[in-house]
């Protein structure tokens, strides 16, 4: 095996953004290498059993895992141009010579020198501290979804969900579908953060949502046997008495933060944007970072929805192709106009306001040459 592989485009992360970027770039004839640290491509999409919102363009009304299958079909049509590695982690970027190091499985190490890179590394779950949160039975929502929807394992019998954003609400609904009781959802704010209709879906099945509440302690010696929840005030200080719930799972859905280590390593200009849930790379409207050969897309560029991640991936894909001289500028502009329109539509609602504010903080008009 060659010590240093070459590729025109390296896409890091095979979730909705990375897959979209890869197929889009390949559609212009780019030679693409895609790596994903998971065993299967699709990212979080493969765990999403609910139907997606949006319009027909984003496959509204289609369940998330089906959208992943459609992207995989598209990838398979481009198999001559895209080489995909699963179980393969991009472990480092060396800005001196633009080399990426990757580890496939346990023992295959290789280096790649791409001409252009799309960072679609997704997000990491956040956790909040509370006594006994180390006990088995305290899970991130992603882990609960993986157990349930990827491996078909029921995570427990009775769950406390922490957080009423879209993930907390959707995973609660999926738990009910799997026959798991949801004792309640606690939310620190005074309204659910996710779509109201997702909340209504679980409320009408009898799940209480405790607004202005948080989890203050996990109960149990060897594993979780209960949880204490408590009301909090506007400054998130506890008020009144705690209430013990009989649960064997505490599922944390308190938010995500962009995975951006490689962007830091590459020396991209980074900025902390609370609305996008952490540090993100500054970018132009084409998703190019301050590094002329690196683009960013999806949750790595700011926490949002899979639908917009897919469109951002497409935008990055077109621009990568353009920068490599693949495709006609008429075709680039046509597709970009369409993708920008879709993004504007997706961000036009109540939840989108916050996203737009965040994006305004980290978007530059154009990079100085």
């Amino acid at each position: 095996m060659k010590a240093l592989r070459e590729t025109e485009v390296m896409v890091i992360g095979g979730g909705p953004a990375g897959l979209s970027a890869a197929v889009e770039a390949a559609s212009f004839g780019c030679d693409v290498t895609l790596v994903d640290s998971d065993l299967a491509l699709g990212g979080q999409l493969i765990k999403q059993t609910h139907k997606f919102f949006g319009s027909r363009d984003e496959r509204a009304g289609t369940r998330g895992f089906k959208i992943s299958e459609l992207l995989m079909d598209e990838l398979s049509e481009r198999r001559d141009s895209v080489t995909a590695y699963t179980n393969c982690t991009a472990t480092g970027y060396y800005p001196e010579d633009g080399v990426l190091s990757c580890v496939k499985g346990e023992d295959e190490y290789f280096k790649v020198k791409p001409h252009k890179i799309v960072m679609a590394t997704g997000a990491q779950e956040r956790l909040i501290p509370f006594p006994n949160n180390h006990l088995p039975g305290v899970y991130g929502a992603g882990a609960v979804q993986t157990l349930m929807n990827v491996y078909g394992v029921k995570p427990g019998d009775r769950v406390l969900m922490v957080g009423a954003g879209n993930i907390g609400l959707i995973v609660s609904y999926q738990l009910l579908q799997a026959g798991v009781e949801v004792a309640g959802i606690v939310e620190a704010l005074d309204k659910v953060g996710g779509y109201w209709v997702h909340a209504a879906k679980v409320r009408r099945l009898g799940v209480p949502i405790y607004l202005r509440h948080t989890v203050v302690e996990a109960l149990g010696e060897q594993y979780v046997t209960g949880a204490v929840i408590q009301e909090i005030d506007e400054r998130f200080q506890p008020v009144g008495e705690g209430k013990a719930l009989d649960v064997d799972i505490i599922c944390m859905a308190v938010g995500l933060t962009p995975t951006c280590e490689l962007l830091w390593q590459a020396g991209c200009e980074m900025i902390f944007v609370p609305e996008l849930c952490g540090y993100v790379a500054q970018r132009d409207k084409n998703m190019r970072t301050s590094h002329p050969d690196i683009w960013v897309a999806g949750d790595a560029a700011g926490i949002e929805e899979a639908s917009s991640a897919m469109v951002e991936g497409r935008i990055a894909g077109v621009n990568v192709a353009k920068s490599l001289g693949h495709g006609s500028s008429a075709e680039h502009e046509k597709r970009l106009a369409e993708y920008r329109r879709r993004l504007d539509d997706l961000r036009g609602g109540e939840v989108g306001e916050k996203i737009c504010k965040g994006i305004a903080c980290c978007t530059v008009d154009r990079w100085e040459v």
Partner: protein
Amino acid sequence: MTDKQRLFNSGVLTEERPGAVKPPQELWESKKNGLVIIECPQRIPCNPCHTSCPTGAVMPFKDINDQPQIDYSKCTGCARCVAVCPGLACLVVDLTWGEADRALMKLPCEMLPEPEEGRQVDCLNREGEAVAKGTVVKVTEPMHDKTRVVHVDVPKDLVMDIRAIRVV
């Protein structure tokens, strides 16, 4: 914040709002096969209720984030939107159905066990309380995508309370 506002903020509709309105009573009373009720009070980027509507009853969206608006004169109660809506926010209520004190509700259902025709089920309100018993009249799966539309015989006076069923 009022208790009512707090309840709404937790996902329970407490009164009519833009995107969550009752059909006009007179038409509703006489419309065979029923009329749609959509409870979608928040601006979110979503429009399959409109794009799937075969008669144009769910009117075109100026902006995909608009709340749905309904031309009830065009609604045939076909329940396609009930099967399609990702938020399970659409249902159909047929007030002309059965005895004078009964009505037929067409509700989305993605839960197990599967409701079966002829079976008694608990009818749940917006907070999941069982407020009545109902009988499953028919179960369809219009989009063949595991979202079933369950036709349930319910007490007519509870059609604005019942929003889900539970197989018991």
